């Protein structure tokens, strides 16, 4: 006796299951993000439309047996969507892909570093991702133009085709110090970053000495990098005096491009000058 209700329930479930898979929707395979589209379904009466994906979920009441119009701007996040139209007696299903719009609307652009020494090869990098107006990554190839405008030097330009929405480039820093504009452009969208280019290490370091009472007056020539840019004030220059077994060292910041200091005048002393890893000339003091 108990088996009959079970069997009936099983049949009922079977019928439900068959009905649930009885019809497929007529639906576009893909649409552009935000575009209008329509879904055709069979049956009669009222039902509920579900469009579900990780990027968006839409639920709305619909009339079965006709065309369901989805207006512009309804489904706009790119991705794969599962579609169901369910009523009390049936469920119809399908799927569609939402593709990114082809017109670029936004650009994520990262330039590194924001500050670096002059005259370095391929030291500035830029990478960009291209998005449509809905924030979808445009994965179709697009031309991205990168331009680095250096003060006192010709602009460097590279045009790169995106792969899966990404493009990157490398640029040289200018021989001249100053702020460079680094621009990434796709279509009529652009994004600008400022790259500070500062002098490199001192190229040559030369000092002279003259008596100043019972001391020696030491003065460097204006300190420049190998491209001729003045090394910034505040850069430390180290003077070292060696006499017999004693050694005295004085660190002096550059002021107006030169470093100057007075040290004890010992006959036969050896004086050297350095800045960072750059060694300057050496003087042997003899009165």
């Amino acid at each position, binding site marked *: 006796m108990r088996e009959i209700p079970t069997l009936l329930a099983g049949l009922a479930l079977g019928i439900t299951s068959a009905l649930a898979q009885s019809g497929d929707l007529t639906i576009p395979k893909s649409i552009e993000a935000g575009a209008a589209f329509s879904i055709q379904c069979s049956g009669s009466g009222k039902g509920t439309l579900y469009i579900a994906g*990780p*990027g968006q979920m*839409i639920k709305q009441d619909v009339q079965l047996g006709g065309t369901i119009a989805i207006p512009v701007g309804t489904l706009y996040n*790119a991705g794969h969507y599962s579609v169901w139209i369910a009523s009390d007696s049936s*469920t119809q299903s399908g799927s569609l892909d939402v593709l990114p719009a082809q017109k670029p609307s936004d650009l994520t652009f*990262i330039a590194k570093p924001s500050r670096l020494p002059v005259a370095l090869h391929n030291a500035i990098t830029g990478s960009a*991702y291209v998005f449509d107006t809905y924030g979808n990554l445009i994965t179709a190839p697009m031309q991205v133009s990168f331009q680095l405008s250096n003060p006192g030097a010709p602009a460097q330009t590279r045009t790169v085709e995106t*792969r899966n929405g*990404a493009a*990157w480039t490398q640029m040289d820093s200018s021989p001249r110090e100053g702020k460079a504009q680094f621009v990434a452009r796709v279509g009529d969208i652009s994004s600008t970053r400022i790259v500070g280019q500062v002098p490199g290490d001192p190229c040559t370091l030369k000092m002279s000495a003259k008596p100043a009472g019972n001391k020696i007056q030491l003065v460097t020539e204006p300190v420049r990098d190998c491209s001729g840019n003045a090394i910034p004030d505040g850069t430390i220059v180290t003077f070292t005096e060696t006499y017999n077994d004693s050694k005295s060292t004085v660190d002096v910041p550059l002021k107006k491009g030169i470093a100057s200091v007075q040290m004890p005048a010992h006959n036969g002393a050896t004086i050297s000058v350095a800045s960072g890893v750059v060694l300057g000339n050496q003087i042997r003091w003899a009165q």
Partner: protein
Amino acid sequence: MLKSLFVISAFSTALSAFAADQPAVHVEQPHLQGPRELQQQTAKAVVQDYLDAWQSMGKALDENRPDLLDRDFTGAAKDKIAATIKAQSAAGVHTSYRDRSHDVQILFYSPEGLSIQLADNVEYEVQLSSGGKSVGTQQVKARYIVVLTPSEVRWRVRIFQSEAQ
């Protein structure tokens, strides 16, 4: 470097074999553009964090809890999925995403090291329930393009987008 990624692949496949509910994972040799070298530890961490993100997303969409996205998602990807969860909650709908297999390939490591892009041919099952009743289930094959960016302790998914195969 290639050898190390084969190791990742073997590790992942072995891992999936021992855990029946875990998806099968295959990691392909990277097809990198960009001048930055990809270290083995970085590649392994990115793939693992990406797979973890699938678990977080599945749970968040199933339980309609956007807070579950916090660990693994950021930026636009997080905003979009959180908006989906909000819409699901308002409509009384749940979706269950169960990933069955992943075929992952790292495509791009940006020169400054602030983003990694990968592609994933993924197979998953999506089930939709409304008002406590199952509406339907679909088996899906999709190609995901994903961009991850580093955070304090892990890589987070910033772009999560499938495209037509």
